[in-house]
């Protein structure tokens, strides 16, 4: 059982939770994730660790309400307990001095990007963050990003904040302006796909953090499998980060839809009960 120590609402649908998990707080590195089971009847869902406080023994998870489990998690309050939290899982982000790195993130993908930006900066890189969202209210963690980023470019679909346009417009502007040695992208699969297509055009090495369906998160089942350069890999143990130019994003998006009908039915039923 893991206690919720603090909670912050980033927006109507996005919540940040600090959860007591001292061993994970100590062991985790940028890029790691945890598997969470909210209650006894709950499913196991993967969530990337957005930060930790070793002294307090807490890890930070940023969750967006999209279905039954995420909504259950967002509705928990300080003092409530989560049934199971296991981790840190996956391979940590490979950090070294690359030169100039563009970090392209969208939506809740911004949260797991934060520790990567921090680590890249500490390794001596010039870090440019492209922060994208549909609208101004959905831009999160801007201030925290500013602590480490050399530059922040904000993109909104509707132009309500920063520059109007997509994350790819922001990334392309940087590439046209200066030499980029690496791009890191975290966000919805469709966003990562288009970032990858763009950087491939410019030959900029790109790493994407994949967010597939998982069950155990320890390499036991293969629910999270993806095709990387034509080979099947398990995101939970071989990833979650891969060379974006090798990822079969279309297959990955197709597989993400495997349980869409059941998920929608369960969510409708859950909302009815509330």
């Amino acid at each position, binding site marked *: 059982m893991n206690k919720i120590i603090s909670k912050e609402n980033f927006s109507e649908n996005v919540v940040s939770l600090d959860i007591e998990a001292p061993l994970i707080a100590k062991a985790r590195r940028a890029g790691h994730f945890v598997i969470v089971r909210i209650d006894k009847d709950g499913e196991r869902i993967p969530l990337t660790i957005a930060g930790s406080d070793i002294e307090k023994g807490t890890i930070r998870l940023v969750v967006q309400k999209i279905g*039954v489990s995420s909504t259950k998690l967002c509705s928990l309050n300080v003092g409530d307990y989560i049934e199971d939290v296991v981790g840190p899982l996956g391979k940590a982000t490979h950090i070294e001095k690359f030169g100039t790195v563009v970090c392209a993130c969208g939506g809740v993908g911004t949260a797991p990007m934060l520790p990567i930006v921090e680590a890249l900066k500490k390794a001596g890189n010039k870090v440019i963050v492209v922060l994208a969202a549909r609208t101004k209210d959905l831009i999160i963690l801007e201030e925290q990003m500013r602590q480490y980023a050399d530059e922040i470019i904000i993109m909104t679909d509707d132009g309500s904040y920063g520059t109007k346009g997509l994350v790819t417009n922001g990334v392309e502007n940087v590439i046209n302006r200066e030499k980029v040695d690496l791009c890191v992208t975290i966000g919805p699969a469709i966003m990562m796909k288009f970032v990858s297509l763009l950087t491939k055009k410019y030959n900029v090495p790109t790493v994407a953090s994949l967010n597939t369906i998982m069950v155990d998160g320890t390499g036991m*089942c293969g629910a999270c499998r993806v095709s990387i350069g034509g080979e099947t890999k398990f995101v939970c*143990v071989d990833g979650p980060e891969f060379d974006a130019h090798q990822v079969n994003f279309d297959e990955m998006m197709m597989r993400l*839809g*495997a349980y869409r009908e059941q998920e929608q039915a369960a969510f409708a039923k859950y909302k009815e009960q509330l």
Partner: protein
Amino acid sequence: MLNIKNNYNTENISMELTNRTAAWREELRKAMKNKERTEITRVNMNELDGEYRSRNYEEVNQGLNKDQALLEAKRCLDCLNPSCITGCPVNIDIPSFIKNIERGAFLEAAQVLKMTSALPAVCGRVCPQERQCESQCIHLKMGKKAVAIGYLERFAADYERESGSISIPEIAAKNGIKIGVVGSGPAGLSFAGDMAKKGYDVTVFEALHEIGGVLKYGIPEFRLPNSIVDVEIGNLEKMGVKFIKDCIVGKTLSFDDLKEQGFKGLFVASGAGLPNFMGIKGENLIGIMSSNEYLTRINLMGAAQDQFDTPVLKGKRVAVIGGGNTAMDSVRTAKRLGAELAMIVYRRSEEEMPARIEEVKHAKEEGIEFRTLHNPIEYYGDEKGRVKQMLLQKMELGEADASGRRKPVEIEGATELIDVDTVIVSVGVSPNPLIPNSIPGLEVSKKGTIVVNENLQSAIPMIFAGGDIVRGGATVILAMGDGRKAAASMDEFIQKK
């Protein structure tokens, strides 16, 4: 024969239960002639009806009643040199427990089992006895059926559990030495039980949120009810074994962390949980999954039951690829989830199937179709990416291969296209690299198994390993045997220091 003596306090009681020359036992042997004993027909297990049980999760085998057990126990000749014991990976004193049943001392029979086995109710259910203890029974040499050792083991263990007076094995004085176990599957549990008996302070670390490994996520309720596994785990807790869930050694806690906390030995029993896929076209379509995923969703996560959040794809036409016990478990589960067609697709013939004969029989009784000498070569999906058809290559048997089994060979041009909406891939497992990769200095083979010496000791002296992480995918009882052996070796290693 009685190697138990070395590992177990030879208190009067234990001796009395296992001493072949004890008065009660001499008397039993004299009570009946061997000829009369061999003429008794082997008992049949009571089972639920095939049609009825294929629609629910009730345990198929119903166990023996007292009369059946008493009669079956009479068949055992109480051999002077019982070869059955050599067939048992944990060397249960088989004649002693059976003779206790014969004299009606059922609780004592259970005590004998627990001297060497941490999980008798589990082994009595899932061991392939026909290839182990029962394959060595003297009756076979006389052209008769072997004594039903597995059924009797299950009877004694079940009797004890249901009696409510479960005995805890004798435990040596606590020595205060901390020992860690990675993984709570059969190897880890068996090791933990033995080390607790020897007086060690044992902590088992489990990555999942439930204790039991494959006994919980893999083997279904209709073959091994979780409640039975829980009782056996409860016994280990009563013996002082501590269990920590949601904890991955090498990830949550490093090997150095454990050393700092004063652990003097570590037994790695993390299993071979990495499922193999065939690497054929279309295998990543929706609706195609490993047996591990399918069974974990259903057995561990409660998918298919209303109140649980985990979903599962309930197929109408389900193909399970493979011929092992996991394949049988998967296909019988699919039938119970309402599949109209649930079939096994296996590239060799039924004779070569690695599954237990009993499981194949049960599957057939439940209406499972068998398509042997067929092998999938490609899957086709619909516009949403869900599998809708599979192309099967027809096979024939050629020469025997290195494993001694006849090799399946493709019949050129002979293929068959079959409509399916769910495919469960059950073609074996590989060692999970998660733990080996997390402990620097551990020697690992090309296949990913941890390299150990004959004492199950790894390249790092304080780390021992056993079960599937050393063997690749094997059986529950072999894993338990390794646990027992590793406990004896580690004890010797620590005591020598």
